[in-house]
């Protein structure tokens, strides 16, 4: 939770209920055979989280790859994503898929109740295509 900025903290069941009762879902549940282990969203910025005990197995990279492939299959518009600079695992996932830094900004984090730095990144359709052609992305 420390790497997220949008969810309120403490997080209550009513917040989760809000989250899942959208008319137009833009969020996927991530499952690896045994129920929900994380969420990935494309709304239209890319965001995600994975349960702590499921991290380090490449799951998020696999999910991000699938969502990017789905997006670039139907659109040439660039994808924006952001992470807190200290969140090196999230940054690695984005770098691996060709995202490049655009700017460092300050935002108000509802989770932390204060301002926090956020690194914005972007992935263009051209860059995605280059990496895919080189087989650089599994």
């Amino acid at each position, binding site marked *: 939770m420390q790497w997220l900025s949008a969810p309120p903290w403490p997080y209550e*069941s009513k917040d989760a209920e*809000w*989250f*899942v009762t959208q008319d137009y879902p833009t969020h*996927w549940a991530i499952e*690896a055979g045994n129920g929900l282990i994380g*969420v990935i969203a494309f709304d*239209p910025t890319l965001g995600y989280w994975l349960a702590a005990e499921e991290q380090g197995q490449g799951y998020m990279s696999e999910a991000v790859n699938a969502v990017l492939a*789905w997006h670039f299959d*139907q659109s040439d518009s660039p994808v924006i994503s952001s992470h807190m600079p200290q969140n090196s695992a999230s940054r690695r996932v984005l770098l691996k898929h060709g995202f490049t830094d655009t700017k460092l900004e300050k935002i108000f984090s509802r989770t932390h109740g204060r301002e926090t730095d956020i690194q914005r990144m972007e992935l263009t359709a051209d860059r995605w295509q280059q990496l895919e052609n080189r087989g650089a992305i599994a």
Partner: protein
Amino acid sequence: MNITLRLLCDDDYDAFHAIVSDFDVVKMTSSWPYPAEEEFTRMRMSTPEAKTGQVNAIEVNGEFAGVVGVVNADVGYFIGKAFWGRGVMTHALKMKTNEFFSDPSSTVLTSCVWHDNPASARVLEKNGFRKTGECIDFCKARNAEVQSLQFELTKETWLQNVGATPIPQIKTSRLELRPIRMDDAPAITNY
């Protein structure tokens, strides 16, 4: 032209106060006084809504241009005359509506303009807002009651505008990605 939204800061005061000292700007707002009052400007720059980024500064090529804010799912904005007629407000409002609707609990965003402000109504319409009604409100700068046009932008329209498509189920070698459901709420709360 680089248009960004950011948190208001103390250094914005001079540019901010110059803008709200212009009658042509504040006569199109409901609550701003004319002539401008320094205390009022400072108060509005330091509200909880400003501190938390519900109200943002609009910056054009590094220069303070105005403000846009969403409070209680209603959006208000103004920019200095020097920035009028260049699409600045339309783009800034687009960024703010994207931020508003990226919160899954957001369903509809409202806004009001005075009847004699067609430029502002166009800014709303270009962002997909539709007129829903009219009413009479008090305009402090004019010290008069003025006819107001009410607009709203629904999440459905916003999603069409941003080109969002319903998400499909996706299978990868180890994972299944599926649209989130109502009964996911307990699992999400537990994490």
